[in-house]
């Protein structure tokens, strides 16, 4: 396991850089992960996606369908990729502190 230093606190992440314990997630971690993911500035649009994913995950224990994410945030897929260069699954979900979506994706 590796650790990411978030303001002096060691946060455990898996080999793909996803948080191991989603309950530890907080906004400080988002800022730190954002730098690692090549997101220079976190805008309101970023937070909108992150908070939506977070809320969905808290309710259902998994990431929403990409189509639903787009519809509910009002961003098309292209916009999501602009916001999170590694995409909705590997980028946005990572920042939102979700486990990495796996399977045939």
């Amino acid at each position, binding site marked *: 396991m590796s650790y990411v230093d978030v303001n002096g606190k060691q946060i455990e992440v898996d*080999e*793909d850089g996803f948080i191991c314990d989603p309950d530890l997630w907080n906004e400080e971690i988002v800022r730190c992960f954002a730098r690692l993911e090549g997101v220079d500035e976190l805008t309101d649009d970023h937070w909108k996606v992150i908070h939506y994913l977070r809320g969905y995950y808290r*309710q*259902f*224990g*998994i*990431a*929403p*369908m*990409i*189509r*639903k994410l787009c*519809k509910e945030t009002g961003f098309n897929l292209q916009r999501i990729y602009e916001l999170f260069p590694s995409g909705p*699954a*590997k980028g946005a979900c990572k920042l939102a502190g979700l486990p990495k*979506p*796996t*399977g*045939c*994706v």
Partner: protein
Amino acid sequence: MKSPMRLAKAEDVRAIGLAPAAEEERKPRLLAKLKELRGSMRSLAVMLDTCVKCGNCVRQCHSYLGTGDPLNAPPARADLMRKLYRRHFTLAGRLLGRITGAEDFDAQTLDAWLTYFYQCNECRRCAVFCPLGVDTAEVTIAGRHLLSELGMVPRFMQQVALNLQKTGNNMGIPKPALLDSVEFLQCEMLEETGLAVKIPVDQAGSEILYIPSSADFFTNVDTIIGVAKMFHALGASWTISSAVLEAANFGLLFNDSAMRAHNRRMRQAAEELGAELVLQGECGHGWRAARLCTEAASGPVRFRLMHVLDYTARNLGRLALRRLSMRVALHDPCNYARAGDLIDEPRRILRACVEELVELAPNREETFCCGGGSGILMDEMMEIRLKLGKKKAEQIQAAGRIDYLAAGCSICKAQLPHVAAHYGMPDLAIGGVMDLVGKAMDMNRSTGGV
């Protein structure tokens, strides 16, 4: 070369019911399991005994062509098991050793197996070109199964297996999330068509149990939408099951018991729901496993088993389809073309749905793999995946301008966008076959529509 592929840790391997072997236990356990397999899987022994090293298959393997690694040439790949087999299970090998190509287990054996059996997409293209019918995929699948018996399982496969244990699908979608997704998709279809197109969940007494790929509820929603619209138009009695929301069967690709366990999920769900017909969705290897292994894994079953593309092709006459003005190329997933008997069906469907169908060359039984086949979808393998996809990329490029690449398999759908982007086709639209059925269907004119 050592593979970048990550292996699951011992405790995670135990969590999916497998027993990791300690260092000193590996060789005896491997030999004992190989002996067992040799008895139970007659074809394996034939594949191991037969190759005459004529080299015919070598330049037909996209994995060898894409990576240029000599150990990815099918006969060299299979030799990684063959030499151990010769050494221990043939008289000549036992007596004469190396001159017969026999070699014993050593410190490199397992690394080489992990590296090269997981750079084989299990696509069976080599077998098409072998004059003796040697199917290297049989050897490498057996090799992967043997590795799993030592507890050596890719982390990716382990995670999928764990999700399957918990939820019955690769992605780990729990039932409440599925219901939420279904509701969302129904709203989408209502908005689009004005009709209440349903995706029934766990509906007992349905005639048809439809088994989608769980990726249809994450990235490939147009595939399940196409399927739902078709059933609606036909007035079919159908349901999906929250207990087996997965056409894929990764067990086929790494561990026999996992394959059987997932196959039994299908049987159990079909029996509980009373379905007469089980339709498998767009997943290549899952269809191969269901079609070829159901009897062995689950015994005689009461339902009929069919693929959704076959079912759709048979029902084309009852669907009101308007040809979309698109130039569409068809990618034949390896498992449909060389293990699934689904070659004409997607063509018949596409001809009814689009104005122009383009053939990639080569195609049908000679199709090249997308490079992700057999679950080589791990992120850490991306560099290798792109090399494995090189032949496919060349084929797509040679097809000229196309509007859509139809690939009726979730692994292909996950892999091909990376291949397309890497080889200079970032804007190519890629999706399933059923997606286009959904888009081409005139919902108000189809028979059975409400």
